[in-house]
């Protein structure tokens, strides 16, 4: 096998990917006018965070804290993964509620353009 594939992918690449995905999410949220697209951008940001969670969890799986430099597997090492599940659950709940709101808004206003949904403005 070529050296390129025999080497494990460096962790920084995962983080870089996570940062790119998060930035895409932010930009999408800021520039898109369609409510559903914005919603998808939020999901993108959440999953970017999830990716960085699992990356760090992998990096520190043998060590609980940076300063300890320990090598034995620690029971705390799965914290990152557990957090990911939390985020997924919240995202699922959010999707359910958020989509329901979007449907309600569409029924009421017949539009999904956020610029026109500004009833709370003074």
């Amino acid at each position, binding site marked *: 096998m070529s050296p390129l594939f025999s080497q494990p992918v460096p962790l920084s690449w995962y983080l870089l990917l996570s940062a790119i995905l998060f930035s895409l999410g*932010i930009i999408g*949220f*800021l*520039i898109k*006018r369609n409510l559903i697209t914005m919603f998808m951008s939020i999901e993108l940001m959440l999953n970017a965070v999830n990716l960085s969670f699992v990356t760090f969890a992998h990096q520190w799986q043998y060590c609980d804290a940076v300063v300890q430099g320990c090598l034995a597997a620690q029971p705390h090492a799965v914290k990152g993964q557990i957090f990911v599940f939390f985020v997924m659950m919240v995202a699922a709940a959010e999707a359910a509620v958020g989509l329901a709101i979007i449907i309600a808004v569409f029924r009421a206003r017949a539009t999904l353009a*956020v*610029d026109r949904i*500004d009833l709370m*403005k*003074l």
Partner: protein
Amino acid sequence: MNGSLHLWLIPLLPFAGFLINGLLGKHLPKWLVTAVALLASLGAFAVVLYAGLPLFLPFSSAYLGHAAPTSFIETFGPWLNIGTLHVDFSFVLDQLSLVMLLIITGVGFLIHLYSVGYMYEEDGYWRYFSYLNLFLFFMTVLVLAGNVLLMFVGWEGVGLASYLLIGYYFTKQSAVDAGKKAFVVNRIGDFGFLIGIFLLLANFGTLTFSEIVAKLAANPGWMGGVLTATALCLVLGATGKSAQLPLYIWLPDAMEGPTPVSALIHAATMVTAGVYMIARIHVLFDHAPFALSVVAVIGAATAFFAATIALVQNDIKRVLAYSTISQLGYMFLGCGVAAYSASIFHLVTHAFFKALLFLSAGAVIHSIGGEQDMRKMGGLRKKLPVTFLCMTAGVIAIAGIPPFAGFFSKDAILYAAFTQGTTGKALWFVGLLTALLTAFYMFRLWYLTFLGEPRSETAHHHHATPWSMLVPLVILALLSICGGWISGTWAGVGKFGSFLAPALGATTTEAGDSSLELTLSIVAVIVALIGWYIAHLFYKQRPQQPAELAAALPGGYKFLSNKWYGDEFYGATVVKPLLAISTYLLGWFVDKAILGGAAWLLGGIATFSGALLQRWQSGNLRSYAAWLAAGAGALLLFVVVPWTSVLANFGIHLTMAGH
């Protein structure tokens, strides 16, 4: 003398009566309210007799096998303990407070009894009696107090009770105003009293009477100076409470209250508190001769001044009110010439005959349906025979005709004044002149009310006086006749003075010249009889005479009937400037400009910044998100960038606090 006398019961019984009637009276039947109020005052009187008589009566010292103590102090516990200041809840029973207590609870009980008949038809019967008991509570605290501060508590308390009772008919605007006036004017006096207390504290380090007396006794050479200032402040307090010049103006208006209240509070007891206070702390005044002469001059001036006003008043209660001010002036005169026991003697007899006069006037007013104008009375002698006889006793007593009570006490004061040098003789002459006026206006009242023919419809219709009103009248009439005999002599304070001597010091009158004393007495009696004769001439023989005299001297008559323009004077010099300052300086400048401006500024800043910041809340979702993202980015920059080294590149060195 060991053991308790249960002095605390004396104020506590009326206080219990106040609580029961005040809290529950509305729901209690009238007979129960009456019983509670009467038993509370009668119980207090009984405790005074129980506590006081065995201790101080001459026969009892032999009976008990020991000499009568000079004073009995009962301490119930500490009140204030601040640094070197110690104030206890302590009561003092000595000859002086015993005499006062006998008057307050004894006459107080009689007036309670009288009120049962007088107030029976009134709304708020229970309220009236709860206030009356509250008054007894505070008055006994005032008299029993063993230190100045506790006395001040009673002093303020009787002022409160007085205010409540003057304004008893609270639906009547004039009564409400009179209550306020009494309260505010007394406030001025209380201010003086309070400053006096502070001065006492600063110079003696204690507020207990016995310790102040002891410190003064230890420094016999300490005269004048700060003691005069202290005494003058206390005199200001006394003039407020005892309605002397210059703070007399509240008492005539206080007649808006029910008549028994005028008898109890504004004639017999509360208004004598100023005299009592001076007598109680007389040792201080003995070390401040200037303050003492001020007291004498105030007393003589007030006595004369009030008597002239009483000459032309037509409201029966107002005549008595000015007469009270005048008689209180006599007591001040007595204090001022250091004849404290003569002053207390007059206080006692005055309590008898003035309470009697007020209650008789109340009986007259009650029986003819609330009419107080003497010009509309007349000929009531046959319709109210008992009241007529009692009133006659009171009138003769106050006019100073022997052997009625007022003669003895007024004479003792006049004699004491006469022996005080040239100034004393001038004061004596003013007192004598006042005695003439007193005899005149009292017999004027007597003739106008009871003799002659009825001068209006109301004087024809009358209804019977209940026995509960007549019994106190008769008892007080007997006391007005016999009350002066306690001195046991025709002139001077006699045995009464030697009884009070342990508390008030030996009187100068005892060692006096008895022939001079007798001469002065005869002069006083002749003067009183002249007063009577003039009244007889004016109101019996030639009823048109007063009107002719008034027409002949229109200026003088107007001056007197307008009460020397006292109210107008205070209105122009005190009330109006005060109102102007309140309206313009305090109201417009301080309140509206400064405080209002500050409030407006604060509100304006909030409104203005709100108007600016609300632009931020665009309602545009994406702008919110952008601000959120920008904020997160700024935080990120703040955390990630090594600011210390970046700034160091620009020559700026941040130092951490504490390093």
